């Protein structure tokens, strides 16, 4: 019980340096940070868009039929340490560099992120699907809907809260990733976590404190908002 509250509190960092806002201003003025944030946002958005779409379709397919190859690969990707994933993708990108002169950059990061975040999307959507009333799909088919129409008009609309939850998870995971990103990013595509890491490596600094508070607050607000939306749409969809 205590641990639960504690873990929530420990993630808030107080800025002890005389309660000044100077450091926050410095954070906002740092153009390098802005660039990193922008990169992270772009990567996370692109990853989320791709991974959510692919993952939702895959989850639907897995809900209906068994696919051991896909299931194994997803499960393995969940369990593989990030270092190994990053390293293996680096090797792949090196090969691609030799073949088609593909340089490391944001696109390689996006590809890498899609690879490891797919399983999160599938997990979330699949768990929602497991709670789905199969009769609803049968009813749609019975009334004359083709399998595609059934998916599009019945299953998908009811799955939206789950898809949004999956998208949020995907976004968070992608935005926050350090290990894999650091291995496959190019020189001019620094992400926010990479910058934070570099700063943290040098030791604790007030600037990092300020930055951490900001990020935590923003993410916290996002989560709360997402939760609010989810509750409202879930209530609407109960039969």
């Amino acid at each position, binding site marked *: 019980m205590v*641990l639960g509250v504690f873990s*929530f509190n*420990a993630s808030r960092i107080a800025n002890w340096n005389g309660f000044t806002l100077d450091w926050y201003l410095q954070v906002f003025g740092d153009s390098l940070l802005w660039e990193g944030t922008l990169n992270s946002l772009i990567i996370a958005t692109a990853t989320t868009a791709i991974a959510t779409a692919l993952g939702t379709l895959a989850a639907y397919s897995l809900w209906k039929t068994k696919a051991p190859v*896909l299931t194994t690969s*997803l499960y393995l990707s969940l369990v593989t340490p990030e*270092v*190994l994933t990053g390293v293996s*993708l680096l090797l792949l990108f090196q090969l691609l560099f030799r073949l088609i002169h593909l340089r490391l950059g944001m696109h390689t990061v996006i590809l890498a992120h899609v690879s490891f975040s797919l399983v999160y999307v599938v997990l979330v959507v699949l768990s929602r699907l497991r709670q789905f009333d199969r009769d609803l799909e049968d009813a749609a088919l019975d009334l004359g809907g083709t399998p595609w129409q059934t998916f599009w008009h019945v299953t998908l609309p009811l799955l939206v809260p789950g898809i949004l939850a999956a998208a949020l998870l995907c976004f968070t995971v992608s*935005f926050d990733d350090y290990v894999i990103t650091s291995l496959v990013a190019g020189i001019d595509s620094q992400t926010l976590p990479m910058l934070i890491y570099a700063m943290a490596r040098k030791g604790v600094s007030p600037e990092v404190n300020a930055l*951490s508070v900001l990020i935590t607050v923003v993410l916290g607000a996002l989560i709360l908002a997402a939760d609010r939306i989810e509750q409202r749409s879930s209530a609407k969809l109960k039969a």
Partner: protein
Amino acid sequence: MISLSRWFRAPAELVMLLLFYLPLAMVFGYSFLTRGAYGGASRPVTVEAYGRVFDLLYLRIVFRSISIATASTAICLVAAFPLAFYIARFARAKTLLINLVTLPFWTSFLIRTYAWMFLLRDTGLINVVLQRIGLISKPLPLLFNDGAVILGLVYGYLPFMVLPIYATLEKLDPALLDAAEDLGATPWVAAWKVAVPLAKPGIIAGSILVFIPCLGAYLTPDLMGGGKTVMLGNLVQNQFTAARDWPFGAAISLVFMGAVFVVMRLLRNYAEDSL
């Protein structure tokens, strides 16, 4: 209906094939090569890299990684079970509490680790407070050691242990525990003899989800251990960047993955298949 499913999963399958299996295969391939002159890899093809994995120096790292991971998993388990049990059995606002436990997971892992650094360092919050109160005179070396790494890992992966156990306990029929107490068991005994065995699938699943990432952790030992605690994850990362010995790094990774695979197969008999 079947063909629709096949179409649907095709893109995901393609992605996993090209961006997961293929890279892994490449790692496999690289592990048999030799370190090139400027890094990278070249022929001759050999298993020399694997031989070096079992060198004493590296075995020490393996041993340390296993012990740290085991300690972290054990602590996670001890901490998570009562928490999950409490929420499943007694709490009224169950969803809210579970969300609170998982909330840290949503905020940046990097930042949370950094927060611990901030708290634990010699001039950090904890030491400052303890010194002000007068409990200690010199700052405690709380950071940059194995203990700090374990703390970081436990904190980071606690939700992974809580959630599976909670999921199993939630499905537990409360009548079972009531029946045990009715037959004369104290609440503690009831919990130990009834809840724990029935929660075994959740415990196994949680342990896997914690142990394996802990074993291959990179960020936590790096930041919380200050580079002094070298675990497997750090070693591999090192080989691919600073040391530029790709075949060796690949070999280590594969040995590690092989071990993980074996362990998981063994535990799969007990664990619930979640996918």
